[in-house]
């Protein structure tokens, strides 16, 4: 139908930047040694691996030994939550939110089966957690609090500084899933009172299947994997060296360009939001401005998200939806339910997530094609009554 391609699903994953790929290639070709080997090839790779750790620690305001390489956000979250529960041994209490990614939410559900109790804090209509609700939920047996830095679906930024301070005050461990924030917005672990932080390279133009866990000096979870001595025995196994090198390069570039990129993405984001809100019966999901620079999430009333996605896809636009019909499980997203959307409104939600490579032309294109798409689908819908003119 059209040859135009517009990728607006950077919240799902991002393209690997050319510079990142270039940085990785030598680690497949020449520098293939095992970083744990004592020979020259191994030592050379070890040096580069530690350099990557220094870069990542530097960007985050952490110490190199506080960075543990993992396979991504899901694994980092599991290591923290399961490891903290394992270390505790006896059943205890966990505080988290009702809008976490499945890689926290479902881990907590699973830990409930093992006898732990979990409080899933509600959020307001913008998807924000009230730090005071965290304070009120703390019990003597609370051993960890896990609150994401920003939500992946609706983009709402969470008050993690305040929550971290409350956790520290009560001497409870604090973990933040910062997968959507690292590489997008500044984060400084020398100020933020977090004991653990999860990040994932493929969300900031690095390769897939690699990430890191920040684990603060002096704090340790029980290892959930048993093997060699790599990554402080918290994540044993031969390191994915090329991917780790790529992650460090991607984060270094993201940090250097962060100010400019977040400013330009915010501008694109706000243009797209105001253009979409011109259409009848469209609502913005998430916070009007305390949201990720590239996140746009709207609900088109009277239509179902999957049919919008399909229409966009036929015209070359890649986006995503939290609607039941597009979820694979046929359940609407727990995040959209948590912000109080009724079923039909949750059904019509579409996320456009902007990132590296998007420009004004892309926004123009989407705003040009979307009114016809929504109009067509609404004409098919039994709930839509066109306004009399």
């Amino acid at each position: 139908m059209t040859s135009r391609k517009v990728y607006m699903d950077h919240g799902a994953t991002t393209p690997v930047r050319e510079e990142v790929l270039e940085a990785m290639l030598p680690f497949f070709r020449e520098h293939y040694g095992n970083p744990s080997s004592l020979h020259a090839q191994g030592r050379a790779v070890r040096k580069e691996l530690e350099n990557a750790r220094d870069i990542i620690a530097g960007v985050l305001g952490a110490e190199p030994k506080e960075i543990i390489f993992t396979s991504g956000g899901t694994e980092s979250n599991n290591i923290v939550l399961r490891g903290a529960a394992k270390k505790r041994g006896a059943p205890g209490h966990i505080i988290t939110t009702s809008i976490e990614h499945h890689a926290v939410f479902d881990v907590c559900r699973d830990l409930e089966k093992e006898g732990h109790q979990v409080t899933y804090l509600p959020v307001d209509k913008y998807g924000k957690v009230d730090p005071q609700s965290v304070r009120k939920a703390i019990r003597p047996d609370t051993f960890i609090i896990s609150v994401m830095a920003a939500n992946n679906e609706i983009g709402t930024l969470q008050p993690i500084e305040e929550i971290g301070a409350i956790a520290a005050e009560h001497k409870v461990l604090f973990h933040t899933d910062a997968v959507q924030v690292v590489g997008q917005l500044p984060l400084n672990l020398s100020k933020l009172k977090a004991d653990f932080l999860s990040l994932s390279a493929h969300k900031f133009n690095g390769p897939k299947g690699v990430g890191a866990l920040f684990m603060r000096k002096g704090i340790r979870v029980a290892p959930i994997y048993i093997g060699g001595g790599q990554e402080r025995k918290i994540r044993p196994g031969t390191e994915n060296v090329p991917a780790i090198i790529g992650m460090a390069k991607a984060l270094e570039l993201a940090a250097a360009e962060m100010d400019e990129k977040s400013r330009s993405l915010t501008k694109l984001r706000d243009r797209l939001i105001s253009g979409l809100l011109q259409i009848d019966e469209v609502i913005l999901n998430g916070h009007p401005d305390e949201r990720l620079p590239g996140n746009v999430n709207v609900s088109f009333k009277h239509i179902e998200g999957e049919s919008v996605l399909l229409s966009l896809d036929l015209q070359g636009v890649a986006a995503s939806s939290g609607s039941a019909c597009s979820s694979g499980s046929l359940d609407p997203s727990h995040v959209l339910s948590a912000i109080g959307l009724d079923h039909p409104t949750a059904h019509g939600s579409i996320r456009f997530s902007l990132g590296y490579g998007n420009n004004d032309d892309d926004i123009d294109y989407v705003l040009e094609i979307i009114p016809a798409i929504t109009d067509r689908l609404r004409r098919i819908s039994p709930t839509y009554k066109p306004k009399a003119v």
Partner: protein
Amino acid sequence: MYNEKVVDHFSNPRNVGELENPDAVGETGSFKCGDTMTLYLKVQNDRIEDVSFQTFGCGAAIASSSMLTEMVKGKTLDEAMKITNQDVADELGGLPPLKLHCSNLAADALHDAIEKYRKKQGV
């Protein structure tokens, strides 16, 4: 994810909208995902003379609704009653397994409309 025929019926659905003075209106909602369909029938001498639909649902639901309206036009009520969701999916050249239930929406709305019509006729 969808084959060409499904995409065609999704992109150019046949028989969309409300019929004026319908002889019966069938309605269904899917228990699985919460979508809904309304089907309008005009019947003459026990034959479906005209049919149209409105659907709130995914691509497969819209395509199934459209396909169904093509399948039933001109059929007797007895023949139409025998159409199953599998028939609709087959006529579309197949649906992804997770989307098979969407064709239920169309078949159920049809059966609902026919039953209501018959009740009204006192059959």
